């Protein structure tokens, strides 16, 4: 190892040394920053994780994250309920039905790209104007999850499209050659084969939902309570972190809650890539 390094050192010209160092130090710096962020939050937060953090009631003395956790789960479920059918169905249309390069496909692709680029604050603004005000839903779980559903639509569409495209055409040909129609081929052959890839995309979307704040602030309100109906206000875990950390009164609680949020989101992302990896391996 050291011998190799010395050999390398002798062989490289100064300019190459510079390039070599630039890339290595940049990469190491990027990794160091990431490790520092995660490490800092964990070290500061873990000692403050107590059982009272998960108490079922929220009081001024004990800012339990339990209501926020429940609200987050409800929001995830409701948002997926709206976005997954739309996302998966439109991907099916684009991959299995539409003629590639047709006008309607180009239009759909363009709008999907636009949605993917819109910052979450603009979604929040739109959700407030449209769902909460114009439709009269008020700040509510319903307004929040519709806003988030639009936001994650491109993500679900894209991952589903990619999974469907990665299914070899020979599967489709086999099915058609047996006299199966398009719908049966999609439903029984293509979609089940692509399911793990789609699932990975959905998990990734869950991560987005759990971590989102700006789009939710004015759409679900900011009230700490257990959700009791579609029109009740609420506060998700990420919003809770925002509140705790900006008021500056409960720093320990803020650290501890951030740890929970971070761990949940990182775990979800890890899960997504693990599922995707297995899917790709299986196809190969």
């Amino acid at each position, binding site marked *: 190892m050291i011998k190799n390094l010395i050999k390398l050192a002798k062989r*490289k*010209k100064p*300019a*190459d040394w510079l*390039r070599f160092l630039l*890339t*290595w*130090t*940049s*990469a190491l710096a*990027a*990794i160091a*920053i*990431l490790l520092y*962020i*995660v490490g800092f*939050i964990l070290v500061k937060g873990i000692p403050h994780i107590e059982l009272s953090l998960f108490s079922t009631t929220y009081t001024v003395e004990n800012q339990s994250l339990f209501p926020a956790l429940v609200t987050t789960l409800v929001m995830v479920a409701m948002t997926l309920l709206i976005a997954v059918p*739309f996302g998966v*169905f*439109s991907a099916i*249309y684009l991959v299995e*039905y539409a003629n590639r390069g047709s006008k*309607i496909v180009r*239009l*759909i692709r363009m*709008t999907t*790209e*636009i*949605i993917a*680029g*819109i*910052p979450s*604050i*603009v979604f929040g*603004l*739109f959700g*407030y*104007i*449209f769902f909460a005000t*114009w439709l009269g839903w008020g700040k509510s779980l319903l307004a929040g999850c519709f806003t988030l559903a*639009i936001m994650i639509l491109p993500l679900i569409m894209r991952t589903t499209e990619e999974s469907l495209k990665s299914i070899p055409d020979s599967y489709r040909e086999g099915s058609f050659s047996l006299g199966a*129609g*398009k*719908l049966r081929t999609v439903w029984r052959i293509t979609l089940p084969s692509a399911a793990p890839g789609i699932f990975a995309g959905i998990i990734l979307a869950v*991560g987005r939902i759990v*971590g989102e*704040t*700006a789009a939710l*602030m*004015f759409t679900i309100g900011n009230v700490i309570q257990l959700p009791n109906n579609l029109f009740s206000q609420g506060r998700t875990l990420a919003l809770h972190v*925002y509140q705790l*950390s900006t008021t500056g009164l409960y720093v320990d609680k803020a650290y501890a809650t951030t740890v929970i*949020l*971070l761990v949940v*989101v*990182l775990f*979800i*992302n*890890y899960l997504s*890539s693990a599922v995707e990896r297995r899917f790709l391996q299986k196809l190969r």
Partner: protein
Amino acid sequence: MLKLTEKFMRIIFLIAAMASVLAVIFICVFLFSQGLPTIFRIGVFEFLLGDRWAPTAAEPLFGILPMILGSLYVTAGAILLGVPIGIFTAVFMARMCPPWLYRLIKPAFNLMAGIPSVVYGFFGLMVIVPLIFDWYGSRFDMMSGNTMLAASVLLGIMILPTVINIAETNIRAVPQELYEGAVALGASHERAVFKVILPAAKSGVMAAVVLGVGRAIGETMAVRMVAGNQVAMRMPHEFLYGVRTLTTNIIIEMGYVEHGSIHYGALIATGVVLFVFILIINLLFTAINHDKKEKSKRQKQNHGETSV
């Protein structure tokens, strides 16, 4: 019966596919229909180039130039700090990294992309802001470390995963023949990568930067937590002062604005301006990508790979 189901489901799929089109139409219609009239009421000039924002004053003023400049400043700062590290890291990932290390850090960057804004914001608030205050606070008579600089540093970090991932993909897409050609002429590995591969991937790297700009300009919560948010005209060298961006202007004032007032309209109009910025960036990205595709087509043809 079966034929009918086929046709019916085809229509269902098509309707679902139109959802994104519908969403964009609704977003545009509602933002513009509420934002544009306010802009005209205030005056296009006074709104976009007005340097005073005093929505609750006796004689209210609605100039968002400070916020437009604020957004541009923090974004520029983020690009200045994040892009070089991002591109060099992308080069490292694509061409320098030993496989064992790659297996470790590639997932790490993917995870980094998944960390929520509030967590970055909280980190910025607890680490970057105090650090800046410690370094410069006494020398420049600062009130706090919530500054343009803090926002730029934090955003520079936040755009890293975007820049790295996109740039890496595009650097990898450069045909291996180019590299081999350079090495065959006696170029060292580093020289081949920097002088041949990186220039060949130029438009892809540009696309990564543009996407990073989009990410930085649209970021809200993290900026809100570290930027200080004072409404004031700043110059670029005043990076040790607080600043307010387009995004934070909305998030801060939407909480207490009187519904239906001109102030309310002005906030939506701020959203419209932000939306237009993002559309321009998207357009730029598409143009670059288009250019890239054309170029790679030509490259492929030069290598004798004709597509059917």
